[in-house]
């Protein structure tokens, strides 16, 4: 029990330190948040703009809500992925990777701490973006099932964490190009997951990739909960694929990270020198 408490406390150390770093870089945080809010508003304006471009009336309010859910959920998932996938790059950039990896803690403790920070930080950002956009467009979300939406986000985060952890291993394998590869994974998820459109509009060969993206199921379930107020029971079918993806990607992510760390330790690639 004591070792578990010790590992949990060590995990919390990463949450605390990263939030302190966020606070110190508050100017950048304000800028990033502003950028995310403006991006969400811009995307949402596509709905009324579509009415003008198409020259025919359709339910633009529903489309606005569809786009807002997409953009806010993506802001959350993207931020979770970003924070997790760049945990190694961040330590390397600050120059602390060796002292962190030399600490007598399990590697999963480091991963869990960085992931917990990612989820909390991203959730707080997503709430701010949602509130601002909802007020801006006077969105009616009275029918939304928020408990269901929260459950979707919680379960969906785990599946994405697994992919994020695998991506975090890339900078351990490729000193220079690892972080660039992470961005490629991130962009691919954006394309195939139906963030701004239903995945059915994708070409068949591309739509196939949406099946393996946890973001696809999170977005579908979230839209069902927020747009249609679907009950928690009726959301359950969405959870199946998410839990399956989590069951595969989370342990696989931790294993890949461990393998990449051993590779880095064998080849002297933990720290970027020069």
């Amino acid at each position, binding site marked *: 029990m004591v070792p578990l408490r010790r590992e949990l406390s060590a995990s919390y150390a990463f949450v605390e330190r990263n939030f302190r770093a966020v606070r110190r870089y508050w100017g950048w945080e304000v800028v990033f948040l502003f950028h995310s809010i403006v991006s969400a508003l811009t995307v949402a304006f596509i709905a009324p703009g579509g009415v003008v471009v198409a020259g025919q009336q359709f339910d633009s309010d529903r489309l606005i809500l569809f786009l807002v859910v997409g953009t806010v959920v993506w802001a959350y998932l993207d931020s979770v992925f970003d924070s997790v996938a760049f945990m190694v790059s961040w330590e390397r950039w600050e120059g602390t990777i*060796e002292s962190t990896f030399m600490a007598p803690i399990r590697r999963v403790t480091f991963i869990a701490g960085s992931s917990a920070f990612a989820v909390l930080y991203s959730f707080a950002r997503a709430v701010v973006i949602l509130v601002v956009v909802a007020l801006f467009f006077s969105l009616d979300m009275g029918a939304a099932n928020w408990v269901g939406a929260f459950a979707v986000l919680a379960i969906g985060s785990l599946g994405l964490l697994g992919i994020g952890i695998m991506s975090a291993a890339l900078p351990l394998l490729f000193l220079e190009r690892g972080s660039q590869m992470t961005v490629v994974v991130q962009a691919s998820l954006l394309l195939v997951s139906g963030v701004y459109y239903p995945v059915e509009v994708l070409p068949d060969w591309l739509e196939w990739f949406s099946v393996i993206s946890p973001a696809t199921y999170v977005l579908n379930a979230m839209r069902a909960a927020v747009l249609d107020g679907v009950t928690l029971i009726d959301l359950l079918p969405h959870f199946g694929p998410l839990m399956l993806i989590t069951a595969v990607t989370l342990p696989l992510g931790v294993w890949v990270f461990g393998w990449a760390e051993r590779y880095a330790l064998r080849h002297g690639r933990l720290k970027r020198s020069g």
Partner: protein
Amino acid sequence: MQPAVSIDHLVKRFDPAGFGGAWRRALGRPLKDPIVALDAINVTVRRGEVYGIVGSNGSGKSTLARVVATLLLPDSGAVQVFGHDVVKEARTVRRFMNRVSVEASFFKKLSPLENLSFTARIYGLPAGEARERIFEILKRLGIEEKAIRRPMDQMSRGQQQKVAVARALLTSPVLLILDEPTTGLDPRSKREVQDFVREICDTHDATVILMTHDMDEAEQLCDRLAVIDKGRILVEDKPTALRREGETLEDAFIRLTGHAVEVHEPDKTAAGGGG
């Protein structure tokens, strides 16, 4: 008595092709020769002593420090710290060892207090006790109370390096690896860090391994010295025994290695180490 560190026939090579080497091998393309960083190193460090390893940049000092610090896996040979294998029992070894590297590695926007609180937490120190010790150690280092709460990027390199040594001390290591702790510092900061290291050696019951290319520093601080060159230990003895009559330690180094100590700024070579 069990030695603090025992290094037996340690070999470490680096493949300059990196991950691409596997592809080249698969495609049958010629591979570059691996760089031999450590070539059958044998070292025994006794408990409680300050053991110095002197050598030029690229001689293998930092690579050796990293292997002992569990940050590099050896290709062959064995390294034991207080009887524990650094590969098979890495986490156990990490519990009673700490390392100060040439760069003070911190979250530079955070304060010394925040950085050291983080270290205390990941090493399992109770929060209240840790806070008390942090203030005690940092004040002993002459760091003003208001500076303890200011971002570290507002401190001089010398002060940052002293905080790095303080961080290592906070975890009460029984083995302290100092990998060129004064390289690149101005003379005053260098003397401050050296004084602090000397104080640690006098007041703490710890074994210290000091990697340096500063001969004066090595002579002043170390009980025994090993000269490393091109990944091989050339000689090992007390500093006074390494010198012939009328020789400085630097003269002895030139006689043993055939070249002078090259002093460059912090390691800029690939594969995790410059020393």
